[in-house]
C-alpha cells in the first residue's frame, strides 16, 4: 500500500515535470506542443550516449541532456512554430504532430528501433525504508527534483522580471508588446525552460523504466498532457497536482484493478473531472478576451 503510493507519487512527479512544459507553453504561446513528449526521448538518448559511450558522470550527462534539449526546444520553436504565429491553431497543431514524427524518425535513423537499456544513474546511491516499503533512490531523486522545480518555477514567475513578463504575455500579448516586452523572446525562453525540464524528465523516466526507444516519449507525453488538462492547462500548480494524481491513480489502478485497463481508467477519471469542472482542477475560468 505505502509502496504503491510512493511509486505512484514518483511516477506522477515525472508526469508533473513533463506537464509543466506543456502548460507553460500553452499558457504563453497558446499552443499545444505535441512534440514535447519526444523531447523527453531525445533527453533520454543524450544522457544514454554520454554515460554509455563517453563514460561521463551522471551529473554531466544530465547537464548535457538539458543543454541539447534546451537548444532543440528553441530551434523547434524558431523553425516550426514562429512562422505560424498568426496562423490557425489547427495548422499549428498539425505542425506540432509533424515535428513529433520528425523527432521519432530521426531517432529511429540514428539509434535504430532496438531498445537501449538505460543505465540507472541513481541506482546504488541509497535506499530508504518506510515501514515495510523500500524507497529506491530513483524515487527519492525524482520526488525531490519535482519539488525543487516547482519551487524554482514559482519563484521565477512571481519574482523575476522575465517571469512577470511571461505572465503578462500569457494574459495579453498585445498589451505586453506595448510595455516594450519582446513577445518572441519570451516565447523562446518558455520553450527553453519547458525543453530543459523535459530532459530532466527523460533521465528520471529512463532511470525508473530503463527501456529506451524512439517512441519512449510518446505515451508519457500524452499522459502528461492529460495531467496538464486535468490540473487546469496554463496553471503551474495545476500541472503539478494533475501529474501526481495521475501517477497515483495509474499505479493503484494497475495494482488493484487491471494492468491492461489502467490507462483507460486514467482517461475515464480525466473525462469525469472535465465534465464536473471543464477548466480542470486548478484552472481559472476562461475570461472573455475583447
Amino acid at each position, binding site marked *: 500500500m505505502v509502496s504503491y503510493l510512493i511509486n505512484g507519487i514518483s511516477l506522477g512527479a515525472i508526469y508533473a515535470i513533463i506537464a509543466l512544459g506543456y502548460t507553460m507553453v500553452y499558457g504563453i504561446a497558446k499552443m499545444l506542443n505535441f512534440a514535447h513528449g519526444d523531447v523527453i526521448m531525445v533527453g533520454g538518448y543524450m544522457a544514454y550516449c554520454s554515460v554509455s559511450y563517453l563514460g561521463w558522470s551522471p551529473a554531466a550527462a544530465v547537464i548535457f541532456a538539458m543543454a541539447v534539449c534546451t537548444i532543440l526546444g528553441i530551434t523547434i520553436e524558431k523553425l516550426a512554430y514562429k512562422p505560424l504565429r498568426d496562423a490557425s491553431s489547427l495548422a499549428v497543431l498539425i505542425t506540432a504532430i509533424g515535428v513529433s514524427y520528425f523527432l521519432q524518425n530521426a531517432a529511429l535513423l540514428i539509434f535504430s528501433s532496438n531498445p537501449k537499456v538505460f543505465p540507472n544513474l541513481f541506482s546504488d546511491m541509497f535506499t530508504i525504508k518506510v515501514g515495510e516499503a523500500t524507497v529506491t533512490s530513483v524515487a527519492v531523486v525524482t520526488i525531490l527534483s519535482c519539488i525543487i522545480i516547482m519551487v524554482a518555477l514559482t519563484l521565477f514567475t512571481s519574482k523575476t522580471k522575465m517571469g512577470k513578463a511571461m505572465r503578462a504575455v500569457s*494574459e495579453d500579448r498585445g498589451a*505586453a508588446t506595448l510595455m*516594450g516586452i519582446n513577445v518572441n523572446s519570451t516565447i523562446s525562453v518558455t520553450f527553453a525552460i519547458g525543453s530543459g525540464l523535459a530532459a530532466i524528465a527523460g533521465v528520471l523516466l529512463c532511470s525508473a523504466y530503463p527501456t529506451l526507444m524512439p517512441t519512449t516519449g510518446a505515451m508519457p507525453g500524452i499522459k502528461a498532457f492529460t495531467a496538464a488538462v486535468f490540473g487546469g492547462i496554463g496553471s503551474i500548480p495545476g500541472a503539478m497536482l494533475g501529474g501526481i494524481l495521475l501517477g497515483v491513480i495509474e499505479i493503484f489502478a494497475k495494482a488493484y484493478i487491471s494492468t491492461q485497463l489502467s490507462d483507460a481508467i486514467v482517461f475515464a477519471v480525466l473525462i469525469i473531472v472535465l465534465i464536473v469542472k471543464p477548466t480542470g482542477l486548478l484552472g481559472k475560468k476562461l475570461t472573455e478576451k475583447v
Partner: protein
Amino acid sequence: MGNMLKVEDLHVYYGSIHAIKGIAFEVNEGEIVTLIGANGAGKSTTLNTVAGLLKASRGEVEFKGEKIAGIPAHKLVSRGMSLCPEGRRVFQELTVRENLEMGAFSRPKAEVNESLETVYELFPRLKERYKQIAGTLSGGEQQMLAMGRSLMSKPALMMLDEPSMGLAPILVEQIFDIIKEMNKNGTTILLVEQNAQMALSIASRAYVLETGRVVSSGTGEKLLKDDAVRKAYLGG
C-alpha cells in the same frame, strides 16, 4: 518646438477592408493633439499603426524625425513612444505594482523606483492599492492604472485611446486633469476621444476623422465653434 510625430499619406487595411485611407497629421513637441470621430472612423487603427502593432500598406510615420516603419512595436517603447490602449487592458492577474513594473520593462532597474514615485504622485490611489490584483480594481482605478503603466516608460509621446470610456462624469474630469498635468510635466500627448467636448477643450490642435479620412482640422477652439463639428460630435 520640434516635430514629435509626423504621419503622411497613411493607408491601413484589415484584409480587404480599407480602414485608413491616406490620412496625414502631425504632433509637435509639448502639444496635446486630439483625434476625434465617430465609432469606426479609424482612430484606434491609426494609433495602433503608429505604435507598430499594425502594418501600414502605404505612407510614412516619422517619430522624433526618424522614419519608424518596420521597427517592431516593443522597440518603439524604449525610443520614447507609449500607447495606453483602448479598453485599458491592464494585466488582470498581476498586482497593481507588477502592472506598473511591466510598464517600465524597457528601462534600467535603477530608474524604476523614480518612475514609480512620479506615477504614485499623479495617482495616489494606485499607491494605496499597490498590492491589489488589478482585475479587482474598479473601472476608474483600472483606467488610472493603465495610464500610470504607460507613463512608467517615461515616454516623450503618450498616446491615449479613449481614456474616458465608460467612466462617470466626475472621473472623466479627473482623468482629463491628469492628462493636462502629464502634459505640463513635459509629455507630448496624442489623445483619441469620443468625448469631443472635453477633448477639444484641452487640445492645442485637433483632427476630425471620418471613415478613414481627415475631414477637418484646426485648433481646439476653432473646432469647438465649427458648425459641422458641433452638429456631428457635440450634439448641436
